[in-house]
């Protein structure tokens, strides 16, 4: 175990800490997840395909992934603006606003859920302005996107802020002195530098949104084929004693999540390499 597996070092505790880590990881995470995959594998490939390609299931996937994508895009755009504003500008209350960006991270999803329904209902604070315009939020796709935007909000902002902070003013000044306009500077100097961070934040917001349950079920309407998110479908299948079906959907979501995780890790590795090169 020592020389080929790891470098020899004087620090003790490797064996025990690695042992505890792997043990804890196994019984809390790997074993239960393995059990899930095992249960699905007993279904057989044919049944698995049938379950997963059923129209209601596909509709739920389309909704979940589609709405999450939309929410992540909204967060990418507005999150960038927020990050930019927080890093570059001064305005009264900036400290408070900066701290508040993490609120969706700390606030329980059930609380966000009922708060959003209350605000966007026809008699709610925002809903009453939207209702006469014919815009329905609660129980529609729009409402789901709003809930998912809320919970993904901190990811883009928090990954962009360090990247923007690390931007060197000299680069921009050099570009300006070479005659570049502000927009060009943005497009050619700033964007490429922060792109890895932006993509990372976007991916994280997306990954978080696809699994979200608590804040969405209050506002979603939960109509099959229309506003039924995949996690809810899992619960419904469970209640119909269709354990295999529930696990099949869960496995598909796990595969997508795992893939997203790899993507995010790769992006972070890329951005770190980029920063090391740039920062020196």
């Amino acid at each position: 175990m020592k020389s080929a597996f790891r470098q020899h070092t004087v620090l003790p505790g490797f064996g025990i800490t690695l042992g505890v880590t792997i043990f804890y990881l196994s019984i809390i995470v790997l074993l239960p997840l393995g059990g899930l995959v095992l249960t699905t594998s007993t279904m057989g490939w044919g049944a698995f395909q049938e379950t997963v390609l059923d129209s209601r299931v596909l509709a739920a996937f389309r909704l979940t992934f589609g709405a999450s994508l939309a929410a992540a895009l909204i967060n990418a755009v507005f999150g960038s603006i927020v990050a930019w504003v927080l890093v570059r500008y001064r305005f009264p209350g900036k400290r408070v606003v900066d701290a508040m960006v993490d609120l969706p991270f700390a606030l329980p999803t059930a609380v966000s859920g009922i708060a959003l329904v209350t605000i966007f209902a026809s008699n709610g604070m925002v809903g009453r302005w939207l209702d006469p315009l014919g815009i329905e939020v609660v129980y529609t796709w729009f409402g789901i996107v709003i809930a998912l935007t809320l919970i993904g909000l901190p990811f883009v902002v928090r990954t962009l802020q360090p990247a923007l902070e690390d931007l060197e003013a000299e680069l921009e000044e050099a570009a300006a002195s070479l005659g570049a306009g502000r927009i060009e500077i943005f497009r050619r100097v700033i964007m490429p530098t922060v792109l890895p961070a932006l993509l990372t934040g976007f991916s994280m917001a997306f990954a978080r949104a696809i699994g979200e349950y608590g804040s969405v079920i209050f506002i979603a309407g939960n109509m099959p084929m229309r506003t039924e998110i995949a996690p809810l479908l899992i619960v419904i299948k469970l209640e119909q004693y269709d354990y295999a079906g529930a696990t099949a959907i869960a496995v598909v979501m796990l595969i997508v999540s795992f893939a997203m995780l790899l993507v995010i890790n790769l992006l972070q590795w890329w951005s770190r390499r980029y920063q090391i090169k740039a920062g020196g």
Partner: protein
Amino acid sequence: MHTAPSRRVHPSLKIEIGRARPLRPLHTSGATTMIRHFRQFRWLALPAVMLLAGCGGGDGEGGAGEAAAGGDVTLLNVSYDPTRELYTEFNAAFTAHWLAQTGQTVTVEQSHAGSGSQARAVIDGLQADVVTLALAYDIDEIATRAQLIDPGWQQRLPNNSAPYTSTIVFLVRKGNPKAIRDWGDLIREDVEVITPNPKTSGGARWNYLAAWGYALRQPGGSEATAKDFVTRLFRNVPVLDSGARGATTTFVQRGMGDVLLAWENEAYLAVNELGPDQVEIVVPSVSILAEPPVAVVDSNVDKKGTRAVAEAYLQYLYSDEGQQIAARNYYRPRNEAIAAQHTAQFGNVTLFTIDEVFGGWQSAQRTHFADGAVFDQIYQPGA
């Protein structure tokens, strides 16, 4: 073991060791290392103890029930959503009654969620002593899938194990602006109907079957016309909540829809709690007799030793006091005399039973609510 190394070059630091004071040896015997390392984990002791206590607490749920006749007993009543108020009142009454009769203190714990969801929880191990659910089908599932209840449970108590009944009525806006009087009005173009999803809500299944039954009774009614009727009804449904309470909230709080199909008792509770100035009840001409059954979970009570108390608990629902409590909570009592006292409160409606029209729950479930069955065929929201 504790030799001070005199001259060694450390592999990674590449410095000479030995000038400093004697090092603790880097490679000690396994035993010493282990003992040293165990000390680090004294921090684990507290959470581990609490975790085990939690396990013990879990056992304790069952353990409490194992008390001998003289000790305290805890029952778990796993019920469905609308019965919260009913059982709060009933549990207090039963506790007092049992204490007076036997001197034993009973605590009844309640769990409420959707009927099907609760059945699934019991199948998965929720240690219910009694189940009081919305449809016999759900209790049948517990019996067949998990063998926790003996088959033939429904005949063990009077009236098909349903101490009270209910039916499906309409809840409309105050003043009934859309003039909704009967089932036929529900398929009008200008009417929006709120009902929960029959696939997930027991109440919604009663709604569906009531509508179907009405259509069958119309002149020229047949399975085909009934199917057409229900299809058109569901086309008027803008939103399908997963549970009865959710649907009521949608209708009253969110202001969606013109009419809510609801349990009778739910409708009355809504009127009381949410405002008689907002909604009113319309009783249709004909509706289905909903018999929410109750049962003792044999396997659990035998294991916990609470059978006597659990059976007495359910029996008490049939007693005068139990029936009065049911009536007060807008359930139609089985007891004729007590029902007679409350006729003013319950509308007059012709009732048919699920056995008459559908041949029982198993048959209805297979025909209408299973995957790919009639409901799945008619409910195509994409269309």
